[in-house]
């Protein structure tokens, strides 16, 4: 399923009002204005792996592993993930029509916008590794979800460790896929 975007005017609501002050002595009738507001609504599609080859989704395949975890305040791909990143790079080299979106994530501590930039550093690190190993620049987009999409909603060290992460999403040449 592709992204589903439904901006719709659901109803007119009143947002605030402005009444106009006049000097009491003037006694003139005063026009007041109601701002009416449209409500926009967005439903985003979830992750949809249909349309992707089995080797990307079969739990037995290494390529179904899409998460790379990072240490606290660290933005480099750890040695234990080098094989996994190399496997994804190899797939992109042999399947030039495929694209990946790398989403960087952080734990919840600190400023949301600063965390967004930190998550970007993690995604960029994975992208650099992929490109260094032969993936084409145009095949890889690195973005950040910051602290906004925690995998583990908890507030302790183990939850935070799960959330310091970059995920790899795939899209097939026909446009079907996970982003």
């Amino acid at each position: 399923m592709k992204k589903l975007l439904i901006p719709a005017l659901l109803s007119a609501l009143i947002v605030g009002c402005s009444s106009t002050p006049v000097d009491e002595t003037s006694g003139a009738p005063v026009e007041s204005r109601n701002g009416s507001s449209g409500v926009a609504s967005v439903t985003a599609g979830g992750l949809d792996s249909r349309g992707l080859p089995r080797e990307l989704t079969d739990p037995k395949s290494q390529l179904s592993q899409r998460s790379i975890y990072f240490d606290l305040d660290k933005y480099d791909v750890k040695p234990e993930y080098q094989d996994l990143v190399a496997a994804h790079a190899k797939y992109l080299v042999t399947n030039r029509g495929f694209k990946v979106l790398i989403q960087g994530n952080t734990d919840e501590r600190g400023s949301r916008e600063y965390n967004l930039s930190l998550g970007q550093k993690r995604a960029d690190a994975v992208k650099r590794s992929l490109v260094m190993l032969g993936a084409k620049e145009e095949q890889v987009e690195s973005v950040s979800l910051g602290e906004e999409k925690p995998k583990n909603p908890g507030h302790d060290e183990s939850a935070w460790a799960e959330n310091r992460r970059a995920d790899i999403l795939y899209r097939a040449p026909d446009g079907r896929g996970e982003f």
Partner: protein
Amino acid sequence: MPQIFRKFLFLLALLAAAGTQAQLSIEITGAGANRIPVAIANFAGETAAAQVIASTVRSDLERSGLFKLIDPAGATLDENAPVNFADWKGRGADALATGSVTRGADGRMQARFRLYDTQKQVALGGAVYVTGPEQLRAAGHRIADYIYEKLTGEKGIFSTRIAYVVKSGGQFKLQIADADGQNAATALSSTEPIISPVWSPDGSKVAYVSFEKKKPVIYVHSLASGQRQVVANFKGSNSAPAWSPDGRKLAIVLSKDGNSQIYSVNADGSGVQRLSQSAGIDTEPRYSPDGSAIYFTSDRGGSPQVYRMSANGGDAQRVTFEGSYNVSPRPSPDGKTLAFISRRDGRFQLAVMDLASKQVQILTDSVKDESPSFAPNGRMILIATEIGGRGVLTAVSSDGRIKQRLSVAGGDVREPAWGPFNP
């Protein structure tokens, strides 16, 4: 229709309107010294409407922390009634407001009031506000603004609006409410996160970051029509919008050329220009009120700190030095103070810096303060914080003495943004 029945219907309508939205509630957890004693008499005229208006005025003034409300002891006085100044002075009121609410031939409500100085025994002024019957509280806010300005010398913010994001279940809602948290309306409802809302200087639009495209994209949302326009959707992340004071441009953060860096873009999405040049992270830009400079967060020195550069880009000067984590800079409307979030012993707290003396003051004792936002008169700073594991909004006076809490039942509230003065 008998008048009493009409009033009853009207009350019902008010109650129905109140029940449809998750409301923010307000608590005063501290109060400033030297509060001005003021009495708001019961307004004459249509009883139900008069009560709504008088109680809105009273709660606005009380909430500001700058006034001490003197009980009018049941006195109902219209704006032309003779005032026994000695009597009100005896009750301790330095100022008194009287007024009335009547229904015009067109069905609209006319709220009149007059403000008196009981010491000097003179009228300080008065006004009439005409509103639809469903907007009496708005008239009350206008009257409170008038009284606030007459008695304190600075503009009131009771009729301004705030924006914030509520997370409830899997749903994210960008809401717009009155400054007292009432009258909340949803501008955008999404299944994906929404962060960093900022008001256009004229109050007609809100820019924000939405994750509905599986990555952060910046939108400008017109509040009257609900229409949304993509302002930045470049390769990589698009985030942290900030309006220029003239409303023509936005400072934004893009990662299209590598690291998160600051750019400017016209409000329609055209004319992207890079402003910052660093090998690290540059984010959270905010224009100074005169539009000449941009404050932002950068880790170029090894830890995230606040810097300042010309609005056209170029060299940056470091602004914060104490501690290893100072982020989310927001210059005050008069440009003299900088609010930001400072990490101290692992706690994220609201801080203010006097920009002339560089003196820093921590204003809260919280653990997880975020996203400060000045009221347009500079008196209060709205922040998101966490109490009992739940996101709430708190307004703190810029001297730290007054704190109000706003909370929405059953939801996490975050990302507040205080709107501009009403035109």
